């Protein structure tokens, strides 16, 4: 699929997503739209997908492991919520969330990437727990376990996004923009360097790719996606407390990206969809949900580590939508093994 075809598919998807919550019966289409809760779940899916895109950049493209994405989401969420209480406009706190988490990513990643693989996993693990302790204990700033309530929805061009569907369209527009940015990054020479260093860091280094710099930027950028997702999460839920930003949710971010298909462009959307919808479907077995999910992940890793998108792309012609910029490398490696 050419760039133009991918663009058309993307635009079509965007149009469908924009229409899903709307009532179309007036236009002669038998679709009553989604209720308030359905729209909320759909928005939550988009916000989760933004953070998952960041994890995918780190895990799927740069070949590192991050166990702190929920903490970065938390930093963005708390920053936006606290700044909102002082009347800071949403646009400013959204940009600040991205910038702050990017800088933290650089500071954390720099020492960790000096050592060897997996050290980033341990540093982010430590960071994740430290953040959670701060969210829980610094009651004066974060409200502690009581959290922060009544977070205001943003005002865009003088329009207050009170209605669920208005806020959904706003988040959809931002998600689309951030997806395009990531699409551009992954397909640029920059993104190809990511692929090269994931496939073989030492060979990439000998070809003149500054492995550490690229990995560091991938980690910082992926973390910034987490921060910006958090900035949208706070006004979406209108209430935040430390629990969704603990270590457990950070681990779930890793799982969802790998389930969706790490290193593929649609993987994070599929994985986030499963992570958001599965607890809704399994509501009757609420306590069993994590157990079922984890068993599914383990079986999947043993049988098909490429994730759902990887599984689907087996039955399809190679396409940039499914394979992303690095699909070619992956497939070629597969052929080598078969020969």
């Amino acid at each position, binding site marked *: 699929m050419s760039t133009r075809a991918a663009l058309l598919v993307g635009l079509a998807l965007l149009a469908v997503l924009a229409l899903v919550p709307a009532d179309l019966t007036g236009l002669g289409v038998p679709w009553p739209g989604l209720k308030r809760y359905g729209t909320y779940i759909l928005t939550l899916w988009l916000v989760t997908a933004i953070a998952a895109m960041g994890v995918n950049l780190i895990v799927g493209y740069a070949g590192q492991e991050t166990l702190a994405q929920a903490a970065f989401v938390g930093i963005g969420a708390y920053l936006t919520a606290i700044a909102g209480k002082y009347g800071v406009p949403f646009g400013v706190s959204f940009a600040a969330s991205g910038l702050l988490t990017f800088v933290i990513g650089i500071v954390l990643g720099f020492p960790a990437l000096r050592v060897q693989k997996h050290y980033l996993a341990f540093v982010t693990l430590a960071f994740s727990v430290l953040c959670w302790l701060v969210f829980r204990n610094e009651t004066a700033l974060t409200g502690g376990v009581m959290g922060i309530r009544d977070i205001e929805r943003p005002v865009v061009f003088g329009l207050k996004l009170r209605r669920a569907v208005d806020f959904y369209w706003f988040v959809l527009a931002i998600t689309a923009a951030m997806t395009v940015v990531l699409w551009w990054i992954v397909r640029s020479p920059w993104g190809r360097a990511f692929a090269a260093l994931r496939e073989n860091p030492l060979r990439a280094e000998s070809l003149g790719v500054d492995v550490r710099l690229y990995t560091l930027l991938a980690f910082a950028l992926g973390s910034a996606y987490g921060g910006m997702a958090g900035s949208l999460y706070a006004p979406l839920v209108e209430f935040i407390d430390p629990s969704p930003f603990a270590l457990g949710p950070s681990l779930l971010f890793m*799982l969802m990206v790998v389930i969706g298909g790490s290193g593929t462009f649609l993987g994070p959307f599929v994985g986030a969809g499963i992570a958001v919808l599965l607890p809704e479907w399994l509501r009757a077995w609420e306590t069993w949900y994590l157990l079922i999910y984890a068993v599914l992940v383990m079986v999947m890793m043993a049988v098909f580590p490429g994730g759902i998108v990887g599984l689907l792309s087996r039955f399809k012609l190679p396409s940039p939508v499914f394979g992303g910029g690095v699909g070619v490398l992956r497939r070629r490696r597969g052929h080598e093994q078969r020969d």
Partner: protein
Amino acid sequence: MTDLLQLLIAGLATGAIYALAAIGFTLLWQTSQTINFAQGEFVMVPAFFALIAMKTLGLPLIVSLAVAVLASLLLLGVAFRYVVVGPLLQRGVLPLVISTIALGIILKESVKDFYSAEAQVFPTLLPDRNVTLLPGVTVSLAQIGVLVVALLAIGLLQWFLAGTRTGRQMQATAQNPTVARILGVPVERMILYTFLINAGLAAVASILISPIYLAKFSNGETLGLVAFAAAIVGGFNQVRGAIVGGLLIGVLDNLAAAYVSTAYRQAVPLVLLVLVILFRPQGLLGRREERAV
């Protein structure tokens, strides 16, 4: 001063338990590149094997503890090796990391759903009496007992690794599996031994720590963090490193809880971990690794 000494001994006792968890983690990493993100849960689960043997099957305490060790060797050792790690070793590191994360969740949720979400009182074999070591310094015999048992286990392991033929073959496997295989070392069996040792150490750690902190499904989170931190602080390519790291973190943990703040007690090993990665990435006792193209 006497307070300090008491805290030090208590710290060494918990630190020795942390060391047990960290050693297993280090061994697995060295011999099979398995980073076990379920290590904390491996220390949490054996206590529940013992509780099931005791409460459900009505076995006496000592038999229950033996059952717990045996069940750990089978499930956390053999089954972990062949059911979880085996099929994934060829798939690379990321699927294995994800799979152990999922395994951790499975163990935790299983205990919560099938046994209990409440903290369980866990019996101890050690005498619950206080003795006065020096004037003013009182320590519980249980703490001394924990320290002795843990150090005994570590000593045995060190002797096994350095003093026996099998142990040296295991070290060879850890250092270079290819060369070890050429020299006739049964690499597969050595890897299985590593998994068994890890499961055994986890069971001992579990039996020692559960009377102190109660047995609870969520204990694995903290224990896992401490085990990772101890392994990296000490130097992950050395068993000695894990021991030093574990003891150090145990002591610092207790001192921080007493003198700094209980709210941030959990932060101590993590801050230490970050500092070590910043200033001495190979760990306190570790040596630098060379990379192969």
